[in-house]
């Protein structure tokens, strides 16, 4: 986990006179799952959008996999856009296409040398990788539940075999069971496909379950970044109230319980 895959230096984002980010630095390593948290309006989504090129920062540099992410050179942009997949809050699937067609679109557009029947097989594979049932492929996004739509969005984000997956609030609006399943999906995909995952989330359970590191956005820059065990003991008042509030403690307790149970089970097995 030593190679820096995404590198932000001195990034500044401002809308009119409102400065969202000022002199923001961030390193994301290959293969890690990093959680991005921060209060409402702290610019988490803006940061994600500036990395994937939907918003152009007014200053600073962004490098993704060795490419300049602010480049406007078409060839370099193509390389960049293939290197990441983005999953938006409610999926952002194309509503006039079936799930299968949604996943086929990026492959057809970007990889013209793949024969049509292979494109369909690839798309079905991605749908299976996103743990969607096979009969979801022929359905339209409006016929799917919220959780299934998010999985379909993951399948589409995986279409071009990216190295990085971005998630904007992946578990928002899901029931706790679907949310936990989604967390597991992200974890499985990241580990088995070697993906680097950047998750914007408010879900403390997600943070405790899947994130290797957590970056806290606040005061226009990254307040702190590190493993959860370090971040939750940070002195900053916002971070304190975030992790030490009733919900934060509950999630931490569950996590600790699960770990101790696993430990007891492990010792029992050894014995």
């Amino acid at each position: 986990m030593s190679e820096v895959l995404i590198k932000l230096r001195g990034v500044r984002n401002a809308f009119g006179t409102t400065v969202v980010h000022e002199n923001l630095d961030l390193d994301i390593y290959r293969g890690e799952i990093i959680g991005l948290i921060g209060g409402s309006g702290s610019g988490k989504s803006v940061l994600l959008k500036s990395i994937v090129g939907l918003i152009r920062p007014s200053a600073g540099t962004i490098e993704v996999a060795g490419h300049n992410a602010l480049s406007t050179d078409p060839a370099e942009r193509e390389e960049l856009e293939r290197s990441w997949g983005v999953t938006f809050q409610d999926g952002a699937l194309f509503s006039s296409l079936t799930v299968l067609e949604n996943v086929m679109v990026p492959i057809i557009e970007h990889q013209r040398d793949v024969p049509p029947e292979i494109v369909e097989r690839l798309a079905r594979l991605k749908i299976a990788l996103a743990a969607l049932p096979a009969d979801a492929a022929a359905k339209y996004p409006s016929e799917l539940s919220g959780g299934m739509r998010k999985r379909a969005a993951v399948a589409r984000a995986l279409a071009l075999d990216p190295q990085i997956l971005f998630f904007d609030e992946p578990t928002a609006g899901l029931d706790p069971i679907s949310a936990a399943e989604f967390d597991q999906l992200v974890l499985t995909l990241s580990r088995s496909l070697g993906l680097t995952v950047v998750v914007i989330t408010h879900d403390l359970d997600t943070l405790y379950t899947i994130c290797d590191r957590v970056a806290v956005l606040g005061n226009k820059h990254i307040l702190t970044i590190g493993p959860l065990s370090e971040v939750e003991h940070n002195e900053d008042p916002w971070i304190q109230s975030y992790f030490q509030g009733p919900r934060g403690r509950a999630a931490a307790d569950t996590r600790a319980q699960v770990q101790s149970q696993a430990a007891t089970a492990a010792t029992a097995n050894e014995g």
Partner: protein
Amino acid sequence: MTAADSPNFEWSEASRLRLSGHWSLQRLGAVWPRVRAPTGEVSAVDGSEISALDTAGAMALLLLLGGPQELPPLEGFRPADQALLELVQQRSLKQRPDRAKPDWGILPLLERIGQTMANALEQGRLLLGFIGLVLETIGAVLIGRRRLRLTAAVHHMETTGLDAVPIVCLLSFLVGAVVAYLGATVLAGFGAQVFTVELVNFAFLREFGVLLTAILVAGRSGSAFTAEIGAMKSGQEIDAIRTLGMDPIELLVLPRILALLLMMPVLSFLATLSGMVGGALVGIIELDISPGLYLTRMQDTTELRHLWVGLFKAPVFAFLIAVVGCLEGLKVAGSAASVGQHTTASVVQTIFLVIMVDAMFAIFFMKIGL
């Protein structure tokens, strides 16, 4: 992309498969056409020269192996690649390439015709029901059981009436000028150029003034009603209004209907004037009819009843536009896409209704000799 990197495979003796190169989606272009299932048993796969493997590469490899239930012995794969391969193998077993083919034939055609007819009837029934509901609410307002929302009505009078004045006047003016040109060109053939005056005035007083206004208002305000109410519906604001014990018809629909009922006649009157001015300008400047002659001719031939025939229709159209616009807004279900569909439906229906009712009025007024 060097040649050494491009993915390749070869079958060696004893049905061993040897792979080399960069097995990723981006570079597999040359490999796909050569991928086919093996003829016999595969004894082993040698992956020691693979430099990269992604899910597309893994799928190509599985296709080469004929999509087996169990993988043959893998040799020399990196652990990560092997894990990926196993994951893809497990998941691809669950694939089921089936696609519902669209059904062509006479039966689906008949079915669609039937559906469309049933839909049209249902729309008509809904519209009549809604008109009834609106009239009932108006009645309740009149006997004081419900309140009239004057502030909202005045707001809608501004947006649908006052704000529409420039565009309605400009367009009527232009159409007036065009009609005058057209009339003059045709009538000149009979040496009856001076009848252009009657043509323009009759057309605008009886038909064009109110019809142009109705079409513009349908496109401008009817669609706005649908979009506003539709956005509120999809944001559950209508539900909120109901749960708070208020009536969306009283709160949202009546002020809009009232505003249009009051403003359409005014707009139609302005449109009629603008059209007549447009026609007069063309007549005077381009066709060399002197202003004096034009005005005298107008006074001699044009009776006031034509204006009443035209303006009589304005409130009727206003009611139709407002009712259809609001009803379509209330029909919105769920997503933002639905708002768009119903806005389109609202404009199409109102313009259709306005022109149809106008035609019926034209026949009616002719028959009763007005």
